[in-house]
């Protein structure tokens, strides 16, 4: 029981620390932290507390921001559960984005089927991109952290090459627009939220969250993945196929991230894009997974939290608060979670003495 409660307490403390630090930075640089909190409130509820007005477009954009980082959060979290650190969600996302663009532009299929093909292709491509570090880890014991970092950059430049060379972009920045059959766009959802970019992307996201929970918690396969994460040698000794599990874990992690690529490419946008630099969805995913304690419900909640931070950035900037305060808060939260041994040590000293509880 002590472990379960610390899985909730630690992220909450880290989040409070992060926001407190963010407010402190604002005060120290002569900005009012109140405007930051107002911007956050408005981005989630659509209510402008200053003017007393309501605009549902903000809610739509908030959900749009939260969708892909929930998926990259699942990606990072899934690998974590098997004891692997997937810094490569960014690259897997881009691999998914390339595949989504290819299927959207090149494949002709009836409405409904087309978009499903797009999503499946993106998952396959992301899975393939994740399989490489997984295989290298299993076969050669090469550390997945370095390989996934390198694969991120390979994917970035592959994407930029593909946009120009494969998809024949005329301005070398974006591809031709996708046909409507390939997209997650919805005029109804957009109209409901006053013209936001809200789209059907939340459906695959919710399905992924449930699938994640089911695979990890309810299947023998998930159990053996977790066993590898807890104790590799123990799992091996118990007869589990450790190497096979490592590869599959990275494939599934990659598929979640690849799906995020599709949700962005055919949901938020309607064309493939060349990118000057990585957009940070992979790093966001690390934050989401850490705060969410690698559980489906946790990833959902922390996805909302970081989605709010991202969505509030434009509002903050318009109110004279540098939007980078969001990154500062996010980084502080991650750093506090990283320091969990130190923090839980302090918490234990502050809290009432519990007889018989071991230092855990």
């Amino acid at each position: 029981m002590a472990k379960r409660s610390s899985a909730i307490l630690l992220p909450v403390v880290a989040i409070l620390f992060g926001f407190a630090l963010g407010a402190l930075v604002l005060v120290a640089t002569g900005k009012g932290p109140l405007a930051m909190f107002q911007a956050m409130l408005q981005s989630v509820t659509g209510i402008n507390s200053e003017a007393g007005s309501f605009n549902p477009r903000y809610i739509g954009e908030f959900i749009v921001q939260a969708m892909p980082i929930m998926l990259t959060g699942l990606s990072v979290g899934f690998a974590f559960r098997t004891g692997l650190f997937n810094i490569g969600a960014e690259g897997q996302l881009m691999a998914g984005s390339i595949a989504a663009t290819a299927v959207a532009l090149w494949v002709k299929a009836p409405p409904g089927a087309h978009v499903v093909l797009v999503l499946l292709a993106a998952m396959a491509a992301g899975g393939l991109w994740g399989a490489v570090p997984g295989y290298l880890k299993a076969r050669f014991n090469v550390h997945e952290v370095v390989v996934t970092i390198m694969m991120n950059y390979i994917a970035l430049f592959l994407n930029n090459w593909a946009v120009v060379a494969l998809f024949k972009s005329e301005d070398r920045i974006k591809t031709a627009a996708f046909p409507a059959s390939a997209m997650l766009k919805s005029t109804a959802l957009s109209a409901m939220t006053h013209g936001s970019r809200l789209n059907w992307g939340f459906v695959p996201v919710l399905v992924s969250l449930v699938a994640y929970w089911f695979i990890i918690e309810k299947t023998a396969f998930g159990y053996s993945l977790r066993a590898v994460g807890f104790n590799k040698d123990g799992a091996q000794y118990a007869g589990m196929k450790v190497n096979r599990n490592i590869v599959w874990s990275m494939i599934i992690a990659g598929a979640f991230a690849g799906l995020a690529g599709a949700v962005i490419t055919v949901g938020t946008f309607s064309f493939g894009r060349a990118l000057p630099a990585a957009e940070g969805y992979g790093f966001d995913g690390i934050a989401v997974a850490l705060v969410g304690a690698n559980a489906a419900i946790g990833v959902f909640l922390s996805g909302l939290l970081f989605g709010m931070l991202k969505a509030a950035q434009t509002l903050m900037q318009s109110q004279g608060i540098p939007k980078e305060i969001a990154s500062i808060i996010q980084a502080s939260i991650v750093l506090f979670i990283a320091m969990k041994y130190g923090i839980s040590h302090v918490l234990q000293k502050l809290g009432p003495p519990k007889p018989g509880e071991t230092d855990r």
Partner: protein
Amino acid sequence: MNILLTMIPMALIYATPIIIAALGGLYSERSGVVNIALEGIMMVGGFAAAAVTVVLEPNPMAAYFGLLAAVITGLLFSVLHAFACVHLKADQVVSGTALNILAGGITVYLCQIFFDQQRTNAFTTGIAKLSLPGLARLPVLGALLFKDVYPTSYAALLLVALTWFVVARTPFGLRLRACGEHPQAAASMGIDVVRMRYVGVLLSGALAGLAGGTMVLTQDIQYSLTSIHGTGFIALACLIFGKWNPAGVLGAGLFFGLSEATSIYAKDIPLLQAVPQDFFYMLPYILTVIALVVFSGKSVGPRAAGESYDPGKR
């Protein structure tokens, strides 16, 4: 031939920050702390260098004060990593990730506070190039290596030699390496592992800060969010490709620098015209993955890098 004459000095400019940052990574990893925050530290250093240079110009030494500021801020920033990893036993990769996110946020935040925009103001000259009297007039070699060269490139070479000497030939280097191979054994011989790891991480912070400052003051006109664009990760690749050795780092760094320079001049070289530019950008990363596979099974890197120091472990 003419292309080579412009390409090689260019490659040297690109290679310089890669080599300096990779040397920083070498100190940290040899002490047993993985530092994927090189990128973030370079950003902080780059920002400090640009900001100080802009403020002090037209003072002719402005850029050098900028570099000094880069070293100091890089060092201070890396204290966070050292404190988290060594004192609080944080996961080194998570802590590094946090620093990378933080660096992007805090530098641009401060740009908005100090300069009211997303980047620093532009400086006028940055670091001035110099020509070595006499040597610069040598045929071919003079133009390649001694004419219009940034002094920071020579500094990088000196740092390679110095790092080799310190790590391979001094008691300090031996102790540092021992902490990265088997900290418990090192501790049993009376080495203060915590202190050595702090020194390793702080040295990596100072060097990565210098690398960031060098990069901005020689390749850019100001600091912005994209000034470093992944060079810290190339430095990490360089460290691995160079087998965690100063000489290897030098070779890998020059090669990666050449690859970057080639991407710019490829359109003028008949054989390389058909190769897309993006391929040259990819090359360092692909080669590093291949190198990791080739090195696998051989004990190339520091054995205990990435593990928190647990004095009770056997």
